[in-house]
């Protein structure tokens, strides 16, 4: 082999070995970091499966458990008097408690459940804190509710907010800006209205998603909106039950 060719082959071999080693070191460091990290996985699913009573034992914050978990999430679960609970933990951007008739009942397994009966007049109640990048998980049973249930975020008022809406087996992901609705994505999903369903929403930068459980149903992109409130909006009639609402403040890395 000629000298320049031999030199070339040697250089390729050396650089290849160096790259391989450096990749391996990075992976080792990352897996060590992973070992130190608390277990984030399944946090929402745990909240979804836990009864309200069980979660209250963990946080004990009056009517609601609104403490921050180690993974940066806040799990809200109902307790006490329904109307007082809604008035203390939320505020309305449209409608009143009369439009949703909130009652806290005992679930089959002893946990608390917030039962809402929608009157047909739209009502939206949101937490008091405002969020930018956010993840939300709502454990719901739709029962005989007929209409649209929206998880709203980046909400300022009824003219400006983002949402993931479910109606029957259809999910829409979109936003309302100055009263104009814009749908970013829509799709159908399979979930029994009579069963507990974990409806998840994420707004991460310009990426917006709607999940049923772990399955991505809708995924859209648009500009980031300024911080706003997070909550639920009911447009319809009938009963709906809420076991827990988990809110993740997604931190920029």
């Amino acid at each position, binding site marked *: 082999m000629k000298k*320049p060719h031999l030199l070339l082959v040697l250089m390729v071999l050396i650089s290849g070995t160096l790259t391989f080693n450096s990749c391996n070191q990075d*992976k080792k460091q*990352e897996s060590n970091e*992973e070992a130190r990290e608390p277990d984030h996985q399944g946090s929402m699913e745990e909240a979804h499966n836990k009864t309200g009573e069980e979660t209250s034992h963990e946080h004990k914050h009056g009517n609601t458990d609104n403490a921050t978990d180690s993974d940066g*999430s806040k799990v809200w679960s109902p307790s006490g008097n329904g109307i007082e609970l809604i008035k203390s933990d939320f505020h309305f951007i449209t409608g009143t408690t009369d439009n949703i008739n909130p009652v806290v009942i005992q679930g089959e397994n002893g946990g608390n459940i917030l039962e809402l009966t929608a009157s047909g007049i739209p009502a939206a109640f949101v937490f008091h804190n405002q969020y930018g990048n956010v993840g939300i998980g709502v454990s719901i049973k739709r029962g005989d509710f007929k209409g649209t249930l929206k998880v709203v975020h980046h909400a300022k008022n009824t003219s400006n907010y983002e949402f993931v809406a479910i109606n029957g087996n259809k999910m829409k992901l979109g936003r309302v800006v100055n009263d104009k609705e814009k749908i970013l994505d829509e799709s159908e999903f399979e979930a029994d209205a009579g069963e507990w369903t974990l409806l998840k929403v*994420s707004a991460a930068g310009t*990426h917006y998603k709607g999940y049923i459980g772990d399955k991505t149903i809708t995924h859209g992109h648009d500009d980031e909106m300024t911080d706003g409130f997070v909550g639920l909006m009911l447009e319809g009639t009938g009963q709906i039950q809420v076991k827990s609402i988990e809110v*993740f403040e*997604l931190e920029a*890395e």
Partner: protein
Amino acid sequence: METLLPDWAPNIHPMIIHFPIVLWTVAVFIDSLSLFLTKNWLRSMAMTLYALGALGGLAAYLSGKQAIDIVSVPMQGELTAGSHSDWGLYTLLYFGLYAAIRLFLFWKQWDRQKPVGIILVLSSLVGMGLITKTADLGGKLVYKYGVGIKK
């Protein structure tokens, strides 16, 4: 496509992503070498690798776009997933544009000129930076948040 996947693979994305990384890295190396050893075959080789790297980048981006809606991403990883997707797009656009410009200069044989060659190598290093950032975020998704580790 799904039937071609091994049982353990959650999607095709992790099998494709290494191609643009390796092709682009070797292309930059060969390109740098061609500044010192003015051999025509090195020039052709670098050009071919850049073009294949851009095609690999396209395949990686499209497979990633499909994968992100199949895998389960924990909430804490959503920002990383979004950034990974964004940087993947920037990388693809850069690769595509660079390969097209490179092909044009190669066709015109303007890339034989030393100053042009130096600018091209320096520009290819920007592509290396983009691919490193994208790969870093992808690694974080897998090794920190466990995305796509199980089918």
